[in-house]
């Protein structure tokens, strides 16, 4: 098992497999996105309280989930990269950051657009909104730190420590609505008893979530291939690859 993982982590092998996986994930993501958008924007009921504005949820909630999922992926891969000195794991961690930041930004913007008609304000400094904004800054900090350090190995180590330190924010975001009173409502789908969302609204939400997740995976793996090529550009297999493509 472990030897298999080691083999997977070898840059040339990962480079080839990531190509295959990212293609699959991209098509899965698109295949889920089309019915997801159809059901969420057109063929699902309005909410008893919020009316048609509830449709923002189908864009906002998966984006918020992915913003946290992306960070956990990034921190896990950064940790593996730090412990095992794995180039493939560091490359995946590096490529999680821009994708995760994009989803965080999307969650914040759609949340703001949803907040204005429902709550009556674009922004409020409650625990949920503030901790999500901190998450965006953590992603920015990661990207900034990575760009600031010339040496790739040193950059991988420094950013991995930052990613691991920031992981403490993830439970804070999740539990912020339970630990403190906030304007943001409590969890709907992930609470222990039955989710308090009607099935006709839960299904499009899950479709959108799986689609976002597949698209996130596709983006990360695509980018990780680029990272690997950049780090390994002086190695034999990349030279061979480049020569082969020229010929």
């Amino acid at each position: 098992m472990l030897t298999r993982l080691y083999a997977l982590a070898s840059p040339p092998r990962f480079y080839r497999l990531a190509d295959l996986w990212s293609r699959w994930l991209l098509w899965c993501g698109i295949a889920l996105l089309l019915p997801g958008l159809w059901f969420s924007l057109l063929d699902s009921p309005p909410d008893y309280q919020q009316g048609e504005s509830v449709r923002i949820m189908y864009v906002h909630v998966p984006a918020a989930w992915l913003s946290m999922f992306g960070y956990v992926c990034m921190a896990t891969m950064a940790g593996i990269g730090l412990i095992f000195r794995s180039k493939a794991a560091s490359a995946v961690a590096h490529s999680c950051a821009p994708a995760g930041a994009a989803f965080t930004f999307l969650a914040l913007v759609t949340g703001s657009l949803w907040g204005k008609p429902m709550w009556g304000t674009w922004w409020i400094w409650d625990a949920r909104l503030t901790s999500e904004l901190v998450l965006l800054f953590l992603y920015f900090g990661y990207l900034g730190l990575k760009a600031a350090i010339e040496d790739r190995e040193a950059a991988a180590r420094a950013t991995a420590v930052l990613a691991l330190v920031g992981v403490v924010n993830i439970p804070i975001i999740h539990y912020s609505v339970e630990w403190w009173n906030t304007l943001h409502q409590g969890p709907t789908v992930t609470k222990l008893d039955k989710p308090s969302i009607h099935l006709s609204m839960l299904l499009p939400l899950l479709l959108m979530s799986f689609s976002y997740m597949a698209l996130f995976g596709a983006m990360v793996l695509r980018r990780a291939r680029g990272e690997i090529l950049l780090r390994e550009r002086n190695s034999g297999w990349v030279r061979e690859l480049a020569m082969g493509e020229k010929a």
Partner: protein
Amino acid sequence: MNRARRDRLILVGLIVTGVAVAVGLMLFALGQNVNLFYSPTQVARGEAPVGHTFRLGGMVVEGSVVRDPNSLKVQFALTDGAHEVVVQREGILPDLFREGQGIVAQGQLDGGGQFIAAEVLAKHDENYMPPEVEHAMETAKQLGLTKGK
């Protein structure tokens, strides 16, 4: 697992737990200050600052909303189940404002214990359902088939 890797694994574990403990203590120390609003019970206990702007959160008491027909003045009571605070507001209320709705008001307490709100925000709950389902649930509740929501 070789020694160097094990050491680094332990180091990563220490970083994560160390930061978690530090941030946990910090949030514990901040305690109430992270809360967005005071509850009517806290106001009744005198924990809310007098003469300073703060936020008050609670449910609008059924039947407590009084609108002035000649202006935008509204008076209503907020409750957290234990205590009530009367809120005065002059201005536009959010669409979701209604009796039984959770809201957060920002303003100050006047001398008579009434809350003069400068801003009223609506909270919406974590329940999502089509209007027909809500209607059916209301009917069932009225017929005594279910115990509350």
